[in-house]
């Protein structure tokens, strides 16, 4: 150890000290027993206790202690026994009694011998961030509810009229109502897509896996698409390899991915076209292949088809009303489950999309 420091070193040290002292996150240094040796200025703003009040007390004694005992014992084991960094979210209590949520990182600083020299703990008050996330969640819930409720009412009244539940309709009345029904169904699809995209963008899309009957999901999707399939005289040829009735995955994700791929395959098929669906399980992976013989993807559009709001030139000509959100949503939800998507296509001959999803 040097007994004195030269002026350059001491200046450097001064900067370090000022940086730590004035950092916006709460920084606490404790000895190996967890007794506070140092706390920076932010301790006052975050916990309400002054630097003087906390030095000499056991870290967290004043502002912590709200979590179950097992939480703290796990924390101590991580930093003291395993000598690793502990990261977590804790509920703490300010001096004035207000509860807040903090994100904490505690790092053990070791001697060369491996002994613990001291602990450094960084804490950040994330109460506002959590509130904001809840608000986003609430917004999506309400928006989806408010948008879908009138659409459901329109749907059901139209259905009763079309079914002749309230009297026989003239031919023209029937055709017009069918038109209303078609537009309304489109609107429901659009709202669902927008909700999914908002969830993805606001990062509130949560993956929850369960046992899924994929055959059932695909059956429902095809059933829903029957009107278009019949209108264009498309033949859909599904092939399943392996037990796809019991898959451990997120049903929402599978539904979004497969529905979009099949819808696109039908939409961009030619009259009397053919769509092949192959679902295959190999080890811990689910493979989905959807192949059409439609208009295909132009070379110049190939690197853009997963981009939000992008619509391929030939796709626009075929169907003017697409949103440009389908493949973007597919790629985004796949990312959430560690899945991948790629495609091959020759313009005017068709396109094949390949998806792989881990299912363990």
């Amino acid at each position: 150890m040097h007994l004195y420091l030269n002026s350059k070193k001491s200046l450097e040290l001064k900067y370090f000290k000022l940086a730590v002292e004035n950092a916006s996150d709460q920084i606490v240094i404790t000895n190996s027993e967890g007794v506070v040796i140092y706390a920076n200025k932010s301790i006052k703003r975050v916990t309400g206790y002054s630097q003087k009040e906390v030095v000499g007390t056991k870290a967290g004694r004043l502002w912590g202690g709200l979590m179950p005992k097992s939480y703290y014992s796990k924390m101590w084991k991580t930093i003291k026994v395993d000598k690793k960094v502990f990261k977590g979210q804790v509920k703490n209590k300010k001096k004035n009694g207000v509860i807040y949520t903090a994100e904490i990182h505690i790092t053990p600083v070791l001697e060369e011998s491996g002994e613990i020299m001291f602990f450094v703990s960084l804490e950040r008050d994330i109460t506002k961030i959590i509130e904001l996330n809840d608000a986003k969640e609430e917004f999506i819930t309400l928006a989806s509810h408010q948008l879908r409720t009138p659409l459901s009412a329109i749907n059901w009244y139209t259905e009763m009229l079309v079914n002749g539940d309230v009297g026989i309709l003239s031919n023209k009345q029937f055709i017009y109502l069918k038109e209303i029904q078609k537009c309304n169904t489109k609107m429901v699809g659009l709202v669902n897509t927008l909700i999914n995209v908002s969830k993805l963008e606001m990062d509130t899309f949560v993956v929850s896996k369960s046992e899924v009957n994929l055959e059932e999901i695909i059956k429902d999707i095809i059933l829903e698409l029957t009107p278009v399939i019949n209108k264009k005289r498309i033949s859909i040829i599904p092939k399943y390899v392996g037990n796809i009735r019991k898959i451990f995955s997120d049903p929402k994700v599978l539904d979004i991915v497969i529905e979009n791929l099949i819808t696109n395959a039908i939409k961009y098929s030619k009259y009397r076209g053919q769509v092949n669906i192959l679902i295959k399980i190999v080890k811990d992976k689910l493979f989905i292949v959807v192949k059409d013989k439609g208009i295909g993807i132009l070379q110049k559009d190939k690197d853009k088809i997963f981009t939000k709001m992008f619509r391929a030139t030939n796709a626009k000509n075929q169907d003017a009303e697409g949103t440009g959100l389908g493949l973007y949503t597919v790629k985004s939800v796949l990312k959430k489950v560690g899945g991948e998507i790629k495609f091959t296509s020759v313009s005017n001959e068709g396109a094949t999309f390949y998806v792989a999803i881990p299912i363990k």
Partner: protein
Amino acid sequence: MPKPKVILIIEDDESIGTVLLEKFKKEEFHVEFAQDGFAGLELALNTHPDIILLDILMPKMSGLATLRSLRKDSWGSQVPVIILSNVSSEKEEVIKSVAKDKPSYYMVKSDVTLDQIVGKVKELMVV
């Protein structure tokens, strides 16, 4: 003539409530109707319907709270309930998990036709 089956519809939205009511009358059900969870629960426990259609987002008492109270009753623990909702996002997960405790089922309003709802109700009546 067999006694008509009794269906209880708990729904706060007037347009939705009316069309469900009309449809099930047309299908020759006897329809009971409540516009919030609190009134719905009371009506359910008093009239013991054969099946319940339950909305989620409602004033006074939410559909999930209604279902929880209903399931505490010995008759109420057995009655089939179809949760009919347009709620999306994570709440959907909660509702789906609730619906796993049979005899509860879950349908998204905007994704089903009236005929599909009637079909589900009839399917549950046969059992």
